[in-house]
């Protein structure tokens, strides 16, 4: 099975506190630690496991600047066979539809049976997978937490729905699936793994390689635009207990007793 996995480089929220920059035009990016979007990493692991079982190859693709190449390389160190970077000044400021248009153009240069994305990203909205499927006119399933290959024409997939229940469906190939965290246990990538792929060539495709017009991509093509970042004023919030750990613990115990939190 030929599998394409779409990945994104994002600020790692497990490692960073996200703060708004002074003028609100961006978040503070100076000291941010970036990584591959967590959902995407599960998608790459899933693709590698499918190929381990039924054969084929895994290609990882990302839209971004040269820094995004690191992320593609990291996922290749996990075991993806190929990497592609879509990068061009003309892509900057693209909305979700713009990103999906770029990916569609790249998909059409290959011959993929299955396309995976992460279900969402911390700085995104969980939209690219569903848009890409509609553009390609292939079936789609979101928040997928189980995949079983039935044959070379179809898969059985589980979607995580409300209440921890799972919706099982049969889906025709080719298709696009957006992957939920927890579907597998992504393998660890060590320094040795990274070194092994350090010199692998990752092709970079720009607007002319993809044959996409300016009308749907970049800032001019975007019909949804982020204007600023801000921190909303939200009521009073929590009463923060101050003092040493001992003092705070004593105060908290009194509060818990009063509220029935200690039996």
């Amino acid at each position, binding site marked *: 099975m030929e599998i394409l996995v779409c990945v994104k480089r994002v600020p790692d929220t497990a490692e960073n506190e996200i703060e708004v920059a002074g003028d609100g035009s961006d978040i503070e990016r100076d000291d941010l630690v970036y990584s591959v979007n967590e959902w995407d990493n599960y998608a790459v692991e899933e693709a590698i496991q499918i190929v381990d079982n039924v054969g084929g190859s895994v290609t990882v693709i990302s839209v971004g600047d040269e820094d995004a190449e690191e992320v593609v390389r990291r996922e290749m160190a996990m075991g993806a066979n190929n990497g592609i970077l879509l990068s061009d000044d003309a892509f900057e400021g693209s909305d979700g539809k713009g990103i999906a248009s770029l990916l569609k153009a790249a998909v059409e240069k290959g011959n993929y049976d299955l396309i995976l994305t992460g279900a969402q990203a*911390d700085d995104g909205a969980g939209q690219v997978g569903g*848009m890409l499927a509609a553009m390609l006119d292939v079936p789609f399933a979101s928040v997928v937490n189980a995949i079983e290959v039935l044959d070379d024409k179809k898969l059985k997939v589980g979607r995580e729905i409300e209440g*921890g229940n799972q*919706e099982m469906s049969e*889906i025709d190939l080719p298709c696009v699936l957006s992957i939920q965290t927890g579907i597998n246990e992504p393998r660890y990538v060590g320094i040795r793994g990274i070194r092994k792929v350090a010199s692998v060539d990752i092709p970079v495709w720009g607007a002319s390689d993809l044959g996409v017009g300016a009308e749907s991509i970049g800032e001019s093509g975007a019909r949804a635009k982020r204007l600023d*970042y801000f921190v909303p004023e939200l009521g009073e919030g929590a009463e923060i207990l101050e003092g040493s750990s001992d003092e705070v613990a004593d105060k908290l115990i009194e509060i818990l007793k009063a509220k029935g939190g200690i039996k």
Partner: protein
Amino acid sequence: MAGQIFAYITHKVGKADDTAAELVKAAGKFFPDAPVTAVVTGSGADLDAVCNEMTAWYREIWKIDNEALAYPNAEAIRKLLVNLLPQDAVVFCGHDTFGMDLAPGLSIKLDSVFVPDVVDFDGLDGDTLKVIRQEYSGQVSTHVSCDISAGAVINIRPGAFQPDESGSAGGQVVDKSAEAGDLAVGRRFLEIVQAEVGDVDITKEDVLVSVGRGIEDQDNIEIAEELAEAIGAVVSCSRPIVDAKWLEKSRQVGTSGQTVKPKVYLALGISGSFQHLGGLKGNPFIVAVNKNPKAPIFQVADVGVVDDLLDFVPVLTEKIQEGK
């Protein structure tokens, strides 16, 4: 001016989802002068019950009865909506697992802008709609402007728009079943697998000690277990802990886990994403312990401790044990 306004109503066993009343509230805030039409799909008596329920909230309800829509398959419903709605329609959906399945593709097929996970309205100027969204699990918010001249698909975060106590729209149901068109799909529903029942039922507990990413390591779960034991509570958790397989799925609080209604909720190292808070009902007294003073959990908590839970919680537990 944007086209006709619609709200897609999700429902289960003959009852509309809570978002049904929220969508009409949101649409009314965005487009105060425009009527909103509910679109309800399904089959048989359940569908009629939901349509009837919607007459309280919507002036007009479009009912589409079709065997192929008996189970809400987003691909079939997308085809239906493309067949049924005007090209420049403004469509409101809930941003839940169904809305995430339906809406992005629908926006492509209607060639309209997609505005996901909207938490508030910020203005409408001609064809430019301004909304508020959140990023990074609610750590920061953004204003987003959208060109809705060719229509829009707008997903509203469940719970973000407080609905009216009751509706009195006195709406009428219009049967549009004949206009459904071709609904062939490449994804066929098989069955629902119910969530596994765990060793404890966190939905029945009065006091929960809930752990999130801040617990850092599987071995540290015992810190929460010791506190829970000291105060007579049970340990629950947020999603990353289940993803890491450190606790069972049945212990997860959130929209994709259990809905709980304790009296007291201790959130240890939990950032407080809306998906997590969506599983917390009944207005519990919330205590948050988090080393990040900007964690969104502090906005909803009653009492906060800004500290590393790994340092603070053992101190707290020891003092409680001593006091007994």
